[in-house]
């Protein structure tokens, strides 16, 4: 099978799910004839028609609300945020209406809200965001954030079939840089399960999305230069978190670095640290440490963005610190 890019994997998942289930349809800004700002839906309108690939007005709350209503009546809407940064305009609709629908009124609300997220692309403060932490404390939502093309496809299929609302973040830095070979047939990658990217015995890096790749670079450098064996866990799903996978790696290496691209304060690493503390405190031979972006809005100029975001060299230094502790 030929390799395809991350964004092509997204497109394949959408096409296959729309093919499989007539209830699946796409809704978003410029996703029709134009195929979306990143071409994730390219060709879908030509193939499935204007009824199933709908160009919406610029109204994120309207789009998400409409998706919820359709989902109540048996549809499986997939909403695209042109950039995930604009999901903030649907924050009320997602946290108050969508997330609570099943609990407060027994309303089925199987929607997917997907879009390009993340930095390292000189996008500035409004085209680089990582909104996962803003939704982590909303019971009723699920949050997926894949790092490979294979997971992007398999998890998006799982998200579309999931009976609960799923926020699906696609790191735009990975869209065309990362390629993968898709398994033959209708393969689902279940939500809620982390992936061991690399086995290791001295310390563990727990991360997700684009920083998985930085963790790999760091691990290889540390193996070469320090003879350190670093295990890497890709969480893949952030809500619910895969506690079992986190605990297993802590018990194995006793040293953990939690890494994410989002800012530190209030970022997901805090929750992960708390869980490690609660579930396997006694196995820790060093404090759980975090490598994240600095606590500032993400600036756009290359030297500034590079300084603010976590780099491979930061992971290397932090791992050496943990190993030396």
């Amino acid at each position, binding site marked *: 099978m030929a390799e395809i890019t991350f964004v092509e994997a997204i497109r394949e998942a959408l096409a296959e799910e729309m093919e499989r289930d007539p209830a699946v349809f796409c809704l978003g800004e410029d996703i029709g004839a134009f195929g979306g700002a990143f071409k994730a839906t390219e060709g879908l309108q030509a193939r499935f028609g204007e009824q199933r690939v709908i160009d*919406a007005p610029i109204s994120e*709350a309207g789009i998400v609300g409409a998706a919820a*209503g359709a989902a109540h009546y048996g*549809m499986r809407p997939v909403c695209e945020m042109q950039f995930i940064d604009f999901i903030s305009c649907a924050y009320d609709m997602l946290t108050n209406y969508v997330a609570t*629908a099943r609990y*407060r009124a027994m309303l*089925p609300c199987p929607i997917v809200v997907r879009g390009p997220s993340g930095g390292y692309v000189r996008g500035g403060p409004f085209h680089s965001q990582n909104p996962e932490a803003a939704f982590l404390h909303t019971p009723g939502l699920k949050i997926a954030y894949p790092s490979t093309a294979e997971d992007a496809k398999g998890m998006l299929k799982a998200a579309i079939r999931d009976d609960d609302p799923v926020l699906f973040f696609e790191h735009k830095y990975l869209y065309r840089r990362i390629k993968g070979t898709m398994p033959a047939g209708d393969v689902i990658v279940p939500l809620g399960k982390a992936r061991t990217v690399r086995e290791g015995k001295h310390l563990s890096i727990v991360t997700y999305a684009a920083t998985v790749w930085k963790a790999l670079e760091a691990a290889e450098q540390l193996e070469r230069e320090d003879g350190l064996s670093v295990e890497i866990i890709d969480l893949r799903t952030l809500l619910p978190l895969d506690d079992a996978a986190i605990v297993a790696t802590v018990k194995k290496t006793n040293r953990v670095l939690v890494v994410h691209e989002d800012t530190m304060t209030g970022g997901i690493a805090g929750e992960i640290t708390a869980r490690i503390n609660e579930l396997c405190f006694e196995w820790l031979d060093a404090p759980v440490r975090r490598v994240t972006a600095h606590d500032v809005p993400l600036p756009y100029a290359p030297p500034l963005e590079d300084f603010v975001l976590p780099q491979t060299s930061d992971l290397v230094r932090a791992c050496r610190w943990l190993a030396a502790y």
Partner: protein
Amino acid sequence: MVTPLPSDPAANAAGLSREQLEALYRWMRLTRTLEERLVALYRQTKVVGGLFRSLGQEACAVGSAFALERRDVLSPLIRNLGSMLVKGAEPVEILRQYMAKGDSPTRGRELNIHFGDVVDRNFVGQISHLGDMVPVMAGVTLTFRMRGEDRVGLVYVGDGATSTGAFHEGINFAAVQRCPLVVVVENNGYAYSTPTSKQTAAAQLVDKAAGYGVPGVRADGNDVLEVHRVTRDAVARARSGGGVTLLELMTYRRKGHAEHDNQSYVPPGEIERWAETNDPIDRYIRRLTTEFGFEPSALAAIDAEVGATVDAATDIAEQSPACDGPDALRGVYASQAAMPVQWYRGEAGTAVASHERPAGWGTHDG
């Protein structure tokens, strides 16, 4: 005695059969009687949380909902208890909900009339955040259009809620997509304490229709037959592919925003004037007896029947069990039976014992 009208709709000005005219009266009376019962229960502190009235607005909810088929979908707000009754909500459900009973429609999760049924009777459980139901109903009706189903939707918003971004995004979306949706602006003059003049500079809320490219109709919201007529036309337009209609129903909120509100902000005499000269039930009784040949006794019989219904429902609801704490952890996710209970619930001793530690714990230099 006056000979009763034939059941032929064509036979009277309203285009409604005697049964339909009677039904409209019964629904309005039931709405008012049920709300009065809730006030009594509220005073006995049997109602948990706030109580919202639609006194003087019953014609808006009843007249509009009466224009829908069972398969059509309604999105009510707190002032639209009457519309839910018309769509099949049972008084006992509403009483249980207000009293936070374990067998209430939301099993105690949500308040007052925040509940729905999208499987059979087709009304959607509202949330508090105003305006949000408009995009939701745009999506419900988009679905019907996509699937070619002969169904329409009706969503209410208050005069105040028209200021929300969600209202704007929702009606615009529905208009562009020509969704079979009727948007009813129930203008009762106030948003909590805020008069409509401080909510918008527009001469009338129906003036918003042109900005969305949809027809707009303003009607007397306290004339149930007028409300029904304009809604029926809008529903017909939606059903025949004509898309969205914006209706503005002029009415008046005679009670406070909720039971606790003393309405200090209302100009003296305003409430009394509406009560005396423009009560939707009084007005309808006059028309029924003068134009449509109903005997006062026939209406009195309905009142008695309605009273008995509410009494019976109250007895049942009062017997209903309270909610069960642990049930609170059920139903957040489809895939999950219940959330795990917090670690510290239960006995401390067991919690400590059950906390996992490495084999060598105690000697282990953490």
